[in-house]
Structures are given as structure tokens and as C-alpha cells.
């Protein structure tokens, strides 16, 4: 019963906070650009409107993969959100899914966009799917490598009573290990955090890594063919990611969420800092070419992540 409550709370909470965050994103963007920006209910109005419209499916699309993709992606983000909330609310609970599961679920949005775009039967969709695939290949490796310092720290903390590798993948273990200081406090952890933040930008699909959508090149690319409720699902998924990804990064690198005492002030602050970095990056960069993006991830982010992993072993 409690589990169900947590899941419902996690999904609803992520939706509400996600929509709020996407409003903040649009507002800050507007302010940087000397504009007034949309009202606070704007993301909600967008979703409501899209839900009320018809879904057009082109003749060349294969119906089921095309329509199933947004649902799957939405479900994946919901699952990731549920696990992260469960850990945040009750870290001592028995198995609620570990780091690896969350990483899997966070890959869902990209994978379903590839699926949906390939099924859409549109040449722009095909190019967009190809780009998304390249991007995933680019950023997943450094993303996983960036987790190493956190896992090692957790392993070290657990090793005092008796080293247990499997246990150190648990999010609760990672959280416990950070009680005396966040992973990001060490040099290795900080480098890993930077890598994870770069990947977050790509996972959110915003400039400079919005090549799969690239409205002026591919007219929307992967999401071009979607309309109505299906598009609403994708927008909702994106909005939730805007909350879930910072939450994940805080959990792994930055001492997790705490709503007691100072935590009540510190937790929102952490989320806001991450969000502001995303928005600033997005507004002060042009879109990279896809091969430039891949070079960035493979030859800059990955080596930094490797260095962070190696350093963490000697900490």
C-alpha cells in the first residue's frame, strides 16, 4: 500500500514539478532574451490543449510502434521518478531498484524517440532518429563512467563492516555514504558531476545538443510527426525529465534530497542551481553539429570521466 502511494506521489509530484520547471526554463530564457515570458500555467495549458486535439498518423507510419513509443517513454520516466522518490522518502527500505535500473530507465526517452521517429515514416524523422542514436552512443559511456566515483565512495563506506560490491550500487548506500560529505566534494566526484551535467544537457535534448530535433534543419526531427495526445506525452516526458534528471544527479553526487531542517532550504537550492546551469548553457550556445557533439562526448567528457574514475580509486 505504501509503495503504491509513493509511486502515485512520485508520478504526480514529478509532473507538477516538471511543468513548473519547464515554466522556469521558459521564463529565464525569455528574461535572458529581453522578453517578458509566458505565465506560470503555460506548460499546463500546452499539455491540456494537446490532449484535446486529434492525433494524425500518416499513412507511411507503422501505427503501433509510433503510438506506443511516447507511452513507453512516459512510463520509463515515471518508473525512474518513482525509484528516486522512494529512495528520497525512505532510504532504508529494502530493494527498490538500484543505480543501474535508474540508468536504464533514464535511457528510455531517447530509445523510444528513436523507435517512434523510425516508425513515423518521415525522412526528417529518419535523420533525427539517426542523430539521436549517435548522441546516445556518444553520451551513455561517459554517463555510466561518471557514476564510478559515487559507487566507489559507497563501496568504501560500506567496506568498513565488510566490503560488499553489489550493495554499493544501491542508491540508499550511495546516499548513506554521503552523510559525511557529498561525492562532489572530492576532486574525482566534482569532475564526475561536471560530466554528468554535460550528459544531462544532452538527455534533455536542449541546445547545444538538440540535433535530433533541430527545428530549423529537421523541422522537429524525431517529434515532427507527433500531434495531439501523443505529442502531449512527449512534452510531458520532457518536462518530467527536467525535474527527474537533476533529482538523480543530486541523489548520486550531491548528498540527496532532505526535507528536514537545513535540507528544506538546501534541496530546492541545489535543484535550482542545476536548472539554471541547464538554462544558461542552452541560451549561450549555438547548436553543435552532430559530429562535433560526438567528439565533445568522446574526446572531452569521456576522458574526464575516466580520470575521475581513476582518481576516485586513490582518494
Amino acid at each position, binding site marked *: 500500500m505504501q509503495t503504491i502511494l509513493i509511486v502515485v506521489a512520485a508520478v504526480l509530484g514529478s509532473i507538477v514539478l516538471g511543468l513548473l520547471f519547464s515554466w522556469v526554463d521558459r521564463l529565464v530564457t525569455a528574461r535572458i532574451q529581453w522578453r517578458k515570458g509566458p505565465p506560470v500555467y*503555460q506548460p499546463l495549458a500546452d499539455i*491540456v*490543449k494537446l490532449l*484535446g486535439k486529434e492525433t494524425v498518423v500518416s499513412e507511411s507510419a507503422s501505427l503501433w510502434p509510433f503510438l506506443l513509443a511516447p507511452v513507453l517513454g512516459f512510463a520509463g520516466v515515471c518508473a525512474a521518478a518513482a525509484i528516486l522518490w522512494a529512495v528520497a522518502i525512505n532510504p532504508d527500505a529494502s530493494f527498490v531498484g538500484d543505480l543501474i535500473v535508474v540508468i536504464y530507465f533514464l535511457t528510455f526517452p531517447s530509445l523510444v524517440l528513436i523507435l517512434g521517429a523510425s516508425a513515423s515514416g518521415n525522412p526528417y524523422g529518419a535523420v533525427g532518429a539517426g542523430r539521436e542514436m549517435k548522441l546516445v552512443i556518444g553520451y551513455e559511456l561517459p554517463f555510466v563512467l561518471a557514476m564510478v566515483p559515487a559507487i566507489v565512495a559507497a563501496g568504501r563506506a560500506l567496506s568498513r563492516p565488510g566490503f560488499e560490491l553489489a550493495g554499493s550500487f544501491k542508491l540508499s548506500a550511495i546516499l548513506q555514504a554521503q552523510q559525511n560529505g557529498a561525492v562532489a566534494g572530492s576532486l574525482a566526484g566534482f569532475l564526475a558531476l561536471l560530466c554528468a551535467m554535460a550528459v544531462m544537457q544532452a538527455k534533455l535534448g536542449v541546445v547545444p545538443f538538440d540535433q535530433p530535433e533541430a527545428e530549423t534543419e529537421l523541422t522537429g526531427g524525431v517529434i515532427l510527426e507527433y500531434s495531439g495526445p501523443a505529442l502531449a506525452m512527449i512534452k510531458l516526458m520532457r518536462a518530467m525529465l527536467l525535474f527527474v534528471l537533476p533529482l538523480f544527479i543530486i541523489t548520486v553526487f550531491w548528498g540527496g534530497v532532505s526535507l528536514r531542517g537545513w535540507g528544506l532550504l538546501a534541496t530546492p537550492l541545489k535543484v535550482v542551481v542545476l536548472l539554471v546551469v541547464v538554462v544558461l548553457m542552452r541560451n549561450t550556445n549555438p547548436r553543435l553539429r552532430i559530429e562535433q557533439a560526438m567528439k565533445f562526448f568522446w574526446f572531452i567528457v569521456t576522458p574526464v570521466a575516466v580520470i575521475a574514475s581513476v582518481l576516485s580509486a586513490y582518494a
Partner: protein
Amino acid sequence: MSVLDKVKLWGLKKSPWVYHVNTGACNNCDIEVLELLTPRFDVERLGVLLACSPRHADALLVTGICTRQARPRLQEIYRQTAKPCLVVCLGACACTAGIFHDAWHFAGPVDEVIREVDPDAKIIYIPGCPPKPEAMIAGIAKALQDL
């Protein structure tokens, strides 16, 4: 009107995404449409966004006389747009063909071209050459109020 319809209408009024179709305009209306997005007018505060695909659009901003080349394409775009959607005839050319009424490549007023596809299409006229951005905002706001 049921509660659900009211909610739907609220969404449509608060978040009209527009797709911009140039059916043979001289660019002036098109620049002024882009002008709407920029700091002085900033229509995003009314929820208006420029959509990149007709699939995402709630309103088609049609500028220019409908040329023979553009005519079938305009009809196709209207068919491809997710309904409900409005059609906004922007500028003198789209409303009445204006100065080009005797041009040989002119293939019918935009409203008639659209009505061929959908006789019940909701069409809005914003005259001017080009209409001032303020006039465009006023026109779209009036149309939304009238939904």
C-alpha cells in the same frame, strides 16, 4: 458545454501554436510575424509559439496571394494539420489579393482555397500591408475570444 469542453477550450485559448505558411508573399508579413516573437512584442507571454510542423499547429498563418504552385500545397497543409485549427489570412494579399489581383499566377483567394477542403473552416482576416504587429496581436486575440 460540459466541463471537459471548457477545459479543452481553455487550453486552446491559452496556447495557440501557429504555423506559418507563405503562399506567395513579399516577405513583409513574414518578417512582421517573426517580429511578434521578439522582445518588443513577445507573443510568448500569450502562449503563442511558432510551431515547426503543421502537425503541432493550432493556427495556420497564411501570408501572400495564393499562387498556382502554392494552392495544392496550402490545401495539403490544411489537411495535415491536427484539428481543431484556425486559418489566419494575414495581410492584404491573403485577404483580398490586394495589389496582385490581376496577376496571372494568382489562383484564388486563400479563404476560398481553404473552404474547398473544409467548408466549415474558421477563417480570420487581418488586413494591412503589412499589418502592424499590434494589429496582428489584436486580431488573434479577438479570434481566440470568439472561439
